């Protein structure tokens, strides 16, 4: 870099030419909204009237005393953890098999990834049809001795959440598989060969060499699964619409309903802000533990 003292005006001009448009758009869309949003949580705005009052932390108190909010929050936690664990286990094994030198690897990789091309809305509709028609049909005609399939999962409060988990796992595991494949390929081949010569079994190689090398992939994949899990809305809407009896209403949908349908914008925004805090804590602790693991491994 050519070092010289630049005057403030020159700096400003250089910045505005390159970063001006994006910085402006970014601040108006994200930062202004975010700050204004924090302010809104302290008001009783109903979404229509111009005037609204500052009411302090009353929204948060109301929110924390609302049972439906806690139900939705618990359901979201269950969903996120079940989905993240299943997705990553499946993706890891798919990647393991698809890096072992089989014929047609690329075909399989591309095929497993293809579910990620489909948006949440369409995906939800497809699986709604699978769960409420196809599986019921199969259950009634071929496995009538198992009561498990003969009724739609989507009609049962317990199973509906699993239907949602299943659908998400089906979509994301192909995506995470790609990241794990990259991780597998980054393990040095010489190390594995040396281990084989020393007589290490596949399991020992997996445990002592491959997994430690793949810590960054695990960190990224869990980060992505948690990040997506907490904010999912479209699959939720088109697969279960939160039902039956609000048993699958994830936090995102709760925020949406509170704000746009119940017209309680202040409370809706307060729950959204609560969601932000949770996502923030999860992300920070993941970065922290991720770094720690990487150093140890």
């Amino acid at each position, binding site marked *: 870099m050519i070092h010289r003292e630049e005057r403030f005006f020159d700096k400003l001009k250089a910045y505005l030419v390159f970063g001006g448009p994006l910085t402006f758009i970014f601040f108006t869309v994200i930062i202004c909204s975010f700050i204004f949003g924090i302010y*809104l949580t302290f008001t009783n705005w109903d979404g229509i009237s111009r005037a609204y009052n500052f009411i302090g932390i009353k929204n948060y108190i109301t929110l924390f005393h609302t049972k439906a909010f806690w139900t939705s929050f618990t359901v979201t936690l269950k969903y996120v953890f079940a989905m993240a664990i299943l997705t990553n286990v499946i993706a890891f094994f798919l990647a393991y098999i698809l890096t072992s030198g089989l014929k047609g690897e690329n075909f399989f990789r591309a095929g497993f990834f293809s579910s990620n091309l489909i948006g949440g809305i369409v995906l939800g509709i497809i699986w709604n049809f699978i769960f409420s028609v196809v599986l019921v049909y199969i259950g009634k005609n071929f496995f009538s001795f198992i009561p498990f399939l003969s009724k739609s999962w989507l009609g049962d409060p317990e199973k509906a959440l699993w239907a949602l988990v299943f659908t998400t796992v089906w979509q994301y595991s192909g995506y995470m598989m790609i990241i794990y494949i*990259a991780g597998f390929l980054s393990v040095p081949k010489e190390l594995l060969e040396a281990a084989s010569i020393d007589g290490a079994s596949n399991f020992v190689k997996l445990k002592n060499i491959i997994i430690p090398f793949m810590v960054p992939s695990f960190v990224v994949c869990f980060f992505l699964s948690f990040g997506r899990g*907490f904010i999912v809305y479209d699959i939720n809407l088109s697969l279960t619409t939160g039902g039956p009896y609000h048993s699958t209403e994830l936090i995102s949908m709760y925020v949406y309903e509170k704000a746009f349908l119940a017209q309680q914008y202040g409370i809706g925004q307060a729950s959204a802000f609560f969601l932000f805090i949770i996502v923030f804590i999860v992300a920070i602790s993941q970065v922290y533990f991720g770094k720690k693991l990487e150093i140890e491994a």
Partner: protein
Amino acid sequence: MRKKRINIYLKLLAISIVFILYISPLLLVLLNSFKTTKEFLLSPLSLPEKLNFQNYIEAFTKMNFISGFTNTVIVTVLSTLFIVLFSSMTAYILVRRSWRFNRYIFFIMVGSMLIPFQAIMIPMLRIFGAIKMTNSIWALIYLYIGFGASLAVFIYHGFIKSIPIELEEAAMIDGASRIQVFFHIVFPLLKPTTITIVVLDMLWIWNDFLLPNLVLLRPSQMTLPLSTYRFYLTYTVDYGLLMAGLVMTVAPLILIYLFLQRYIIKGIIQGSIK
């Protein structure tokens, strides 16, 4: 050696079974898109009696497919284009000038990636509603640039840091302006990163539902996910028709994927390593 062979066949068998289970939902959608509702109710698993395109013709007009498709293409292409252009330029100035101000901006952008969409949507609608900047696909594009900015800047930032500065200095000595240096030297070098960002943003924007659902209200402006959802609410029980609609919504991306598969998968890997 023989044991190894068997092992490979077992693996191939296992992965094939899993694969068939994986893609069967998509195949079922395709199969049933050719059936009449009567045929469908009789057996959702059987092959259609004949290749009947009636559902497609009907879904095409009822979904107003052309309009939805055009809107989606405009929004996706323009948003991605502007995100790529503006973010690469911003990342460039952020990396190449180590002013304190630049460090703050970068920090704010990276930090903002942790804000979930839901924490922004309500105040955003309030602000942009107040200045009458909702209800048009242009406003939607503006918002997408804002939402896509931080990740793109972050990825570009990491890549530009690894580009040696000597090339740029040489060009500057030859009398090129900073803008010329950027577009003639730096931007071409950024190609792998640009592919990553194009892939990630295209998949995201093409399929996004919530943001357009909040911003676009008139049916004539709706993007494909919105018109598909409306179509679904109207024809929930008319399965054959519905499936044909779904196939048409998904088909454009699948077609692109068939041709650009290699780049897309590479793009995802690149994006995740950062």
